[in-house]
């Protein structure tokens, strides 16, 4: 577990170095090819498409929000700089940045409503923009713009020697790759990957999903605009709406990204090296007779890639060279948890809630008259209760009593119709889950919500980021929690392959890594055998002992009775009773709710 910060730093700097070396390599190839325009042109195309596809990869690959209308931003960059140059004589070096700003504004306008909605809306909205821009530009008389050759050379980004363009594009590619590399091992990158895997869980781990997606989208759009400027000045004599905003641009970028490998650093460059020369060759051979042949190839490549090689070439190549990571002997056993209290605090600092300033006698959470209905069905009706600090509060109730709805309301996934929620005296009724997480409300889910394709450690790291000041601290927290929860043996395995028990442990680890003051635990014992259920109960007890207040929802009452300090009984969305576990389970209404009126009549003297 102890990846030293220095080792980590070394690994990262090695990756930076390889990016710089590859880019220097590209520049040298270009230098040695000499003035052969055809070869230089193909090299230029490869680098440019690799850079554009990598930019596209940020939001679409890493963030998982595929921008189908990416040509909008490439086209905007191209048209802005070319029009500024032609009409006002503005240097493309300046026009490029104007293009970037306009592209970012357009992306913001598109993203603002659609990134909140179901993914289909985002897809449709992003496609619609370039489709409508083409007729508008055509109507304005900008269907074809001849880029004038002024002979100012460097100032107007016009060179007769294509090697200068290659050099500029290599610098751009290096910039894009360095941005991606920095992103990959930053808090932002982890947040983006987490969103891609499981948006609900990401939100619960203190990640502001909406603005993270938006930021990635704006970065991608801005870089796309730069690619557009370089494309039009480096390769085109005539800029057309088709070459700027056309569908074939996006299909090219999509196929390069997918064939190379979605969300990989090197994938797009490698795929571009394969695909671009093929496309150019076909275009040169058959382009005159069959004008659509290049698009047919790219369209077919796209369909083929999606069906047969979803992970792309790069992952395959990498797989050949990479040996499986060494794995410490799996130490994970349900029994391992028992020792947590005894030895948990040995080497690693114990999981503790953040310092609590407010008065110890105040309830940590105060629920006042919460009501919530779904299309006429009342799920919660006027529920009020206080949660004392440092205690374990159990909420019981039969299926459909409104337990999970209550959690979702407390946690900010749902907005209550009426009522107020106070956390440490602060009104948090309309807070989002990620805000609550930062305030100190952690959550585990009834149906485990892990980031399946990330490793166990990365999962926990995502939670740790919500409180940690920097990467190293997050690593330390995550490492500690993983160790403490007995997951160390699985730290480098993907979360998707864990057993039910391990998945539950992971959920707890991730929630604890956010250093909660209050932990909401939703049916932790569902699907576990009695032995494992006992272990969970022990785990909850030790969590509470470390000073974290815990609210547990549980369907199986017996397990809860043993650990809860206080219990609340829900039925039909109403709070039926509240008291010590013994009081609650002997309440006639609760007995009736669980076992029916007949059973109560027979067995309970009321």
């Amino acid at each position: 577990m102890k990846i030293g910060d220095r080792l980590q730093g070394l690994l990262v700097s090695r990756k930076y170095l390889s990016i710089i070396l590859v880019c220097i390599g590209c520049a040298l190839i270009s230098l040695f090819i000499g003035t052969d325009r055809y070869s230089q042109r193909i090299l230029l195309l490869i680098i440019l498409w690799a850079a554009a596809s990598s930019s596209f990869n940020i939001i679409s690959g890493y963030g998982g929000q595929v921008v189908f209308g990416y040509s909008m931003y490439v086209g905007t960059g191209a048209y802005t700089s070319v029009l500024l140059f032609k009409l006002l004589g503005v240097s493309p070096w300046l026009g490029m940045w104007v293009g970037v700003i306009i592209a970012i504004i357009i992306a913001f306008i598109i993203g603002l409503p659609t990134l909140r909605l179901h993914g289909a809306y985002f897809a449709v909205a992003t496609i619609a923009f370039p489709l409508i821009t083409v007729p508008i530009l055509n109507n304005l008389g900008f269907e074809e713009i001849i880029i004038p050759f002024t002979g100012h050379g460097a100032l107007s980004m016009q060179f007769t020697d294509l090697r200068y363009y290659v050099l500029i594009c290599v610098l751009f590619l290096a910039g894009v790759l360095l941005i991606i590399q920095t992103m990959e091992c930053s808090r932002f990158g982890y947040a983006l990957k987490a969103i891609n895997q499981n948006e609900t869980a990401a939100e619960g781990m203190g990640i502001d999903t909406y603005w993270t997606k938006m930021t990635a989208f704006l970065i991608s759009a801005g870089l796309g605009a730069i690619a557009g400027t370089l494309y039009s000045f480096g390769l085109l004599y005539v800029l057309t709406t088709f070459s700027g905003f056309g569908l074939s641009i996006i299909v090219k970028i999509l196929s390069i990204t997918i064939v190379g490998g979605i969300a990989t650093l090197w994938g797009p460059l490698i795929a571009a090296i394969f695909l671009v020369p093929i496309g150019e060759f076909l275009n040169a051979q058959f382009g005159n007779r069959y004008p659509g042949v290049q698009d047919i190839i790219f369209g077919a490549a796209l369909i083929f890639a999606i069906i047969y090689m979803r992970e792309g070439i790069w992952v395959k190549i990498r797989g050949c060279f990479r040996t499986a990571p060494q794995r410490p002997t799996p130490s994970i056993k349900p029994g391992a948890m028992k020792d947590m209290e005894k030895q948990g605090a040995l080497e690693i600092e114990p999981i503790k809630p953040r310092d609590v300033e407010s008065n110890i006698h105040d309830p940590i959470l105060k629920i006042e008259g919460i009501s919530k209905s779904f299309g006429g069905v009342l799920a919660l009706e006027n529920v009020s209760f206080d949660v004392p600090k440092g205690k374990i509060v159990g909420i019981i109730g039969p299926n459909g009593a409104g337990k999970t709805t209550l959690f979702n309301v407390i946690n900010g996934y749902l907005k209550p119709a009426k009522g107020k929620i106070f956390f440490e005296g602060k009104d948090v009724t309309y807070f989002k889950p990620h805000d609550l997480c930062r305030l100190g409300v952690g959550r585990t889910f009834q149906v485990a919500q892990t980031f399946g394709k990330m490793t166990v450690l990365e999962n926990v790291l995502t939670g740790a980021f919500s409180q940690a000041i920097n990467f190293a601290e997050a690593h330390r927290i995550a490492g500690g929690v993983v160790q403490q929860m007995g997951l160390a043996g699985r730290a480098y395995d993907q979360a998707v392959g864990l057993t039910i028990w391990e998945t539950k442990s992971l959920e707890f680890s991730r929630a604890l890594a956010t250093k909660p003051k209050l932990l909401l635990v939703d049916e932790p014992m569902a699907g576990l055998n009695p032995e494992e259920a006992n272990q969970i109960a022990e785990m909850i007890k030790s969590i509470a002992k470390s000073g974290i207040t815990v609210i547990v929802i549980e369907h199986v009452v017996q397990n809860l009775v043993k650990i809860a300090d206080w219990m609340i009984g829900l039925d039909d969305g109403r709070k039926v009773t509240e008291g010590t576990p013994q009081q609650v389970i002997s309440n006639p209404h609760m007995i009736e709710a669980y076992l029916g009126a007949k059973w109560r009549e027979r067995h309970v003297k009321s």
Partner: protein
Amino acid sequence: MEVLVQLIVAGILAGVSYGVLAAGLALIFGVMKIINFAHAEFAVLAMYLPTYFFLHWWGLDPFLSAFIALPMFFLLGYGIQRLVIERIIGTPEAETSTLIITMGISLLIANIILVIWSGAPRMINQPYTLATWSVGSVLINKAQTYSLFISLGLIFGLFWFLNRTMIGKAIQAAADDPEGSAYMGINLHFVYGLAFGLGVAITAAGGCLMATYRPFNPFYGETIIIILFASVVLGGMTSITGALLGALIIGLLQQVSALILPLALQNVAVFVVFVLFLYLRPQGILGKEGRMV
């Protein structure tokens, strides 16, 4: 005033013709949660074959072609679903991957048409293509009127099929809860193929009808698809009724906007409404509770 009446009539005629296409798109999205980006290209393909070339080769009337297109494109759609799209459905990224695949298909169809039949715009020349009736001072195109009635028939047929037959009900059940309906013995592969085939077939028939009064070229799909997207978003994505209503509104809007906008920019008005809906009422006109049919 007469101009306005003329535009409203044109708007209704256009709206219903878009409605047929949008209904297919909404059916596919409603059942499989797939955005079929190639949707308009199927309509364009139908304009060439059977419509244009059956008339050209054998003198077959385009209105008959519309009915020939139904089984032809049903088989095509069913085949594409079973051979290509089905491989991806059910994976976590299915929504995105299917959109990417259909994007590839759309590019393939458009460019194959381009390679085989050239990019020259084509037009169908039948006695009714440019003929009109005049009601007062309002002129009504004959081809469009015939198309209107056939379109209404197709829509009625689709509703009848979905609501009154066992297979139609199975499709609706699969749309509502795929897992549950699979447990009830519904073969999802078959039902999805059916829904995709049906969606493509009705769209192709709509394309045939459209070809009787509009010139077209291989890339005509790019012009229509945005109208279809707008109609479907207005209708709340999954509702066929909503999509029809959306298409009608879009058709009216597009024609009436001719009062202030130049002809080439008709679709800009459509687009503005589309964006406004995304901001203000993303759940569509009928709201979240809108059912599929």
